[in-house]
């Protein structure tokens, strides 16, 4: 595979920021109550991550090491404010449901993590692809969890009825617990388990060892 293409594809599964590095969990739990909020959040993060990576990479040679973090955060925060303003203007209802979580993209470890670990050391194009890839890696997990939660809690996807609810004369009894934050934890845990079972190399080394029994 070409190097640049690998930069894009690798973070989607192999070095996925959520399942491998377990970053960005806070927002992944908060905005996945429905597919629509997960979708808007995913697009916002992809936008911020790609642009912040590109901008930081363009000026990386002129960022003094002593003030590099504050420069990175300033750029990221400005992009986040722009996204927040655009959402408030064009997707007013959704922006209210997302409440603080768009603003909290600033403190999403994935964004600053990629700026520091990748964009500061690589040229703009690979940095853009890296941002895009990591954003997509975050997005598919959000979308999957959002879809499962909305489907099981409301019987809908993006507001369209998929499973007819008992209260409307259908057969599906919704799982109320899926609307609550802990369910996102369980789903994410199951997902990480599944991914790591298929991709054994992602398993972490055990932090404890079996005691050696001397006979």
């Amino acid at each position, binding site marked *: 595979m070409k190097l640049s293409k690998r930069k894009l594809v690798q973070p989607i599964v192999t070095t996925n920021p959520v399942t491998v590095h377990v970053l960005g969990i806070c927002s992944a739990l908060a905005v996945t109550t429905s597919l629509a909020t997960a979708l808007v959040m995913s697009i916002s993060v992809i936008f911020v991550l790609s642009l912040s990576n590109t901008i930081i990479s363009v*000026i990386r040679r*002129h*960022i*003094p*090491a*002593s*003030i590099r973090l*504050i*420069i990175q955060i*300033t*750029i990221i*925060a*400005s992009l986040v*404010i*722009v996204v927040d*303003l*655009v959402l*408030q*203007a*064009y997707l*007013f209802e959704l922006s209210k449901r997302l*409440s*603080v979580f768009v603003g909290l993209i600033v403190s999403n470890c994935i964004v600053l993590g990629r700026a520091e670990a990748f964009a500061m050391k690589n040229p703009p194009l690979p940095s853009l692809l890296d941002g895009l890839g990591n954003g997509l890696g975050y997005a598919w997990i959000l979308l999957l969890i959002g879809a499962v939660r909305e489907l099981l809690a409301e019987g809908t996807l993006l507001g369209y009825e998929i499973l007819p609810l008992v209260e409307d004369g259908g057969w599906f009894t919704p799982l109320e617990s899926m609307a609550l934050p802990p369910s996102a934890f369980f789903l994410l845990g199951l997902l990480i388990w599944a991914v790591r079972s298929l991709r054994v190399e992602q398993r972490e080394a055990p932090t404890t060892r079996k005691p050696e029994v001397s006979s």
Partner: protein
Amino acid sequence: MDSVNPLRWWQVFLGLPNRRPAKAIGIALLVALACSLTVALTALNLKPIADANRLRERAASLVALVAALGVDMPRARLVELADGEYVARDPQSTMMLDGGRDLAGLGAVETVAEVYELRDSAGVQLVVLPVRGAGYQSVLKGYLALRGDLDTIAALRFHEQNETPGMGAKIADPAWQALWTGKRVAGDDGTIRVRAVRGDGEGLHEVDGISGATRTVNRINNLLQFWLGPDGYGPYLARLKAEAGT
């Protein structure tokens, strides 16, 4: 002339080693300038759309409030706050409030406000008063609806607030707002007594507070004191009461 060529200065600046404080200060200034310009231009360009959204939400909130009470849409009237008389035109003027009177933290208040009145043959049935004030970390805007006795609260709703989610933001919770319904505004002596208290509210004037949101709730108490008082709708309500009495 080479020494005054801006392009040359730029190259010299970029050529400075990153360790030099001048470079660090220069880069910090440039990044700050570019970022603030981007944010300011975006905000300016999107302001008309955001304002329109807010107006639509405000109108929808009034419609929802009236629908929940099951009454007809009240009629909008312009009222001079100082004497409570109807006026035909809004002069768009404001009045400064000095510290002691500025309970809602507004700084200045308009001299003419728009209120909504529902009358039938028996007189005033419902008035809906727009109220606003400084919250803990955002501006709170809402509607206070009073029944025909001008003392019983029919509804209190906030359609705009940006308080801490899960804490102050609970003021937007319909269940909490419903606690205000049926409470009485004034005590026997005519002072404004309705308020949310810490813990459980008792009697005709008290509403349960929200734990973890004491400051936000206190600001609501203050803004109600202001808007029902002499610098708010006090004179207007007094005039309606006098009208009903005669």
